[in-house]
């Protein structure tokens, strides 16, 4: 458990250091995600790596536990709404309408593009 958590933190740490050293506009945790993915893929090729957190479902179960409660992690930032009650009192309705319309439009545009692109590609595969 602790070893698995350490491995996750280590991936994030390396990610944060890398994006700062290279001054790239990529979030550190996203680089950490890629690193952990590469480690998991490397483990399949080199069974030597399958020990500690990478063996016996260690990092997998720690990650699943964290992701099962992903909603919890947004609460502290969200409670920040109490600091913004003045802006919300002035522009709250407009902001809510704008965000709601934007999220609906984005959901529809994204899913329509995804479905259209994947059916187009699978049709091409069927009749090359």
């Amino acid at each position: 458990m602790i070893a698995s958590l350490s491995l996750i933190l280590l991936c994030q740490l390396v990610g944060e250091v890398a994006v700062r050293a290279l001054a790239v506009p990529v979030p550190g945790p996203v680089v950490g995600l890629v690193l952990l993915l590469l480690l998991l893929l490397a483990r399949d090729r080199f069974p030597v790596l399958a020990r500690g957190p990478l063996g016996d479902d260690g990092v997998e179960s720690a990650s699943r536990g964290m992701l099962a409660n992903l909603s919890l992690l947004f609460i502290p930032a969200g409670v920040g709404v109490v600091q913004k009650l003045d802006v919300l009192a002035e522009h709250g309705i407009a902001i809510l309408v704008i965000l709601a319309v934007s999220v609906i439009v984005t959901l529809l545009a994204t899913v329509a593009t995804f479905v259209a692109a994947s059916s187009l590609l699978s049709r091409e595969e069927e009749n090359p």
Partner: protein
Amino acid sequence: MSDNPFSLWVYLSQSPLLWLTVTLLTYVATDAVSLKTRRHPLANPVLHSLWIIGAFLLLTGTSYTTYFAGAQFVHFLLGPATVALAVPLYENRRRVAAAVLPMLVALAVGSLTAIVSVVLLARAFGLPRDIILSLSPKSVTAGVAMGISESLHADPSLTAVSVILTGIMGAIIVTPLMNFTGVTDFRGRGFAAGIAAHGIGTARAFQVDEVAGVFAGIAMSLNALVTSLLVPLAATYLLR
């Protein structure tokens, strides 16, 4: 100390312990309600935790800074949770590899739609420029959005609020909206949730379907990259 119950409150209200406990207990309760209602969209645990904790802070006159001193331990886990997305991604790698092209096209369209729609709507409503800038990165995960907002000299705390509101609305609306459109491809449904509603959309997607959750997680990570590049451009061209 025991002769004055108020002094106990003074001690507790300033200690991280109380606010960390309040955050966890409120989540446990709202998540239990969400489970009881078989994950009904309106029983969203983030939404209900926010107003309960917010009301509690206002009633007790506690500042957000004091609250955050305790809640930061939870907030900190956002980074490690992003890293943890590697695991479902790894477990579903074949399915993901087969859908790389549709994902990239949907990423470009979705990311652009998220930014342009919010900027144009906010302009139409005549909102002040600094509020529009603060709203523009609202579809990416909180930490990244706040960084973008800071680099544009907007208001990062207003950005955080708009990010969370967007996430909650997206998480509530995604299931009924997708059922309405008749799309049954959970890869696309999840991907849209991750683009439009970042981690809260991803959390919702994981509740509905594992594959949807995986695709939402990828969408959220990719969108964090694309949006950090696109928002400064949008600010330059759409807000002259």
